[in-house]
């Protein structure tokens, strides 16, 4: 299969996702509003407590609203990369269209990525909507660093690697309903320990070791420092150990993380598919 034909399939799958998304117009609009509500609720709380909590956020520029809103936007993209592969494989399985792909001459790794591409594009649009809403609500960015985009990209790659790994657990562990253990742990620690809603100082110190588990932590830290005029005070455990510019350390960690997770994800998907084919774990046809 040539690259072009692969891309055509991917394009068609994305188009499909959009068609379904917008099929019921009222639901489509309600969905978007519902997603935005999370942001609005956090923004309202942040607005109400902006002045009082400012001193606690001096590392990240002191504005709680910008802090939390920026975190939510990043989280949208990152958690989508973690969740999309597993959930798209799961949906394809449960909607009984997985046979269509299994019988076709497509590379399994490409297949999983192409299936999740639809939700990735969709969530990216949501992230842009988030950004617009955030700007309307009062997000103020002090500088537009290209470095922050680099951090986002690295974080995205790392999360996609994790996503591929968790997608392969769908059939490796037969974790077909609910969630697989890997994605579950990542989601938990990204919500609790990565500093999404509140700075890490609120938590007991040992939680900062757990924070190192997820790529989210580094991305939030780097992006906030870069965009919100942050200082270079150490926060994460690695910052204390390595003693360099925190942003640089974050970027380095993300690079290492993404290399490892993408490689692992690739191999797990590829070999996992073979194992799944051995036991017919993905097929409904019986």
């Amino acid at each position: 299969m040539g690259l072009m034909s692969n891309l055509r399939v991917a394009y068609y799958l994305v188009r499909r996702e959009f068609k379904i998304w917008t099929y019921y117009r009222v639901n489509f609009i309600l969905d978007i509003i519902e997603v935005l509500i999370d942001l609005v609720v956090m923004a309202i709380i942040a607005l109400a407590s902006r002045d009082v909590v400012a001193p606690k956020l001096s590392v990240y520029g002191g504005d709680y609203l910008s802090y939390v809103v920026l975190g939510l936007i990043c989280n949208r993209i990152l958690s989508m990369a973690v969740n999309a592969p597993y959930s798209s494989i799961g949906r394809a399985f449960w909607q009984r269209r997985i046979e269509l792909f299994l019988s076709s001459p497509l590379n399994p790794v490409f297949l999983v990525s192409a299936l999740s591409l639809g939700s990735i594009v969709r969530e990216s649009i949501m992230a842009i909507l988030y950004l617009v809403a955030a700007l309307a609500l009062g997000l103020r960015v002090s500088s537009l660093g290209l470095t922050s985009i680099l951090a986002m990209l690295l974080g995205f790659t790392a999360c996609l690697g994790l996503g591929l790994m968790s997608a392969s657990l769908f059939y490796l562990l037969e974790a077909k309903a609910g969630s697989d253990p890997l994605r579950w742990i990542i989601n938990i620690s990204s919500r609790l320990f990565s500093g999404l809603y509140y700075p890490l100082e609120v938590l007991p110190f040992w939680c900062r070791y757990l924070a190192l588990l997820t790529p989210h932590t580094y991305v939030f830290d780097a992006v906030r420092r870069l965009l919100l005029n942050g200082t270079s005070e150490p926060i994460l455990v690695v910052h204390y150990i390595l003693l360099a510019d925190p942003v640089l350390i974050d970027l380095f960690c993300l690079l290492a993380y993404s290399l490892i997770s993408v490689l692992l994800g690739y191999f797990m998907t590829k070999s996992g598919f073979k194992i799944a084919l051995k036991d017919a774990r993905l097929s409904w046809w019986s």
Partner: protein
Amino acid sequence: MDAVVVEDVYKRYPKYKRYGPGTALGRAHWVMATLYRLKGRGYVEALKGVSFKVSEGEIFCIIGPNGAGKTTLMKCIGVMLIPDKGYIEVVGIDVVKNPLRAKKKITVVGSGYWAGFDWSLTLVENLILFGLMYGYSMSEARSKAKEILDVVGLSEKANDRPSKLSSGERQRLSLARGFIAETPVFLIDEPTVGLDPEGAKQVRGYIKSEFKKQGYTLIFTTHFMYEAEYLADRIAIMDRGKIIEIGSPEELKLKFIRGKVIDIKALNVYKNVLEKLRSLDVINIDYFYRFGGAEVNLKILTKKPYEILEEAIDIILSHRGSLIYADVREPTLEDVYRIIFR
């Protein structure tokens, strides 16, 4: 030249059992399945050493009871399942070593609900997606899809979803999906299940003419014996993971039956008459009561049809029954099948 070569293929599945009461973590299937695998027991043997060859342009049929391993075999050839042992070759490509290259040469058409559609795309979109997967360009795939929909007679429903179709139309759609990729080898699971006689005839006619004309190789399974007889050049009979017989329909009939079938329709035939008929020199008797027992349809399979018919008429008439219909006919493949798996 052989289009498909299957040599000594083995396949077994881990058996899922009731694992007893659950734990706090639930039944945790994968843990138990892994344990079973490690212990090396609790397997279901689906294929136990299957070998055959299908030459190019041949129509090959696999029949057998439910659970004989037909589907597993089809899945193995269609690269949707990797066999434990053995060698499968499709158009000269080893399917285990080169799965993606082999898949380009095969179209697998499932049946019923597992037909492999995208249930939220319309018919034409489904076909386009399938075409794209086999490397067509967008415009090629589109024109091809429309053309094929015309062929299977679904063009006025092109913009409906598969869930709106009746079962027969769905079957035709999955066939259409099969024809779009134009691969040299086709695997079809029950091509006419759920079709009305007319529709089934159309599909059969299409397969018969088109496949021969294009020189495609076809392997299919079916439960309709007349279909196997009508379409297949050779038939393999499978039972419990093994092929027990391969041959053309005529060969199979010759091999298993040297006798004829008597169809009898009679009135007022009761248990005692049936018992007497059974004591005759017959291979098998099927009986079906109708009208609440007033009438009975008998199908007697025997090697000495004329003697048996004579005796049967005597028996029925002497017990105040009356015979309204009788026919001595050649056995069909269905009779062969029923002899083997009685």
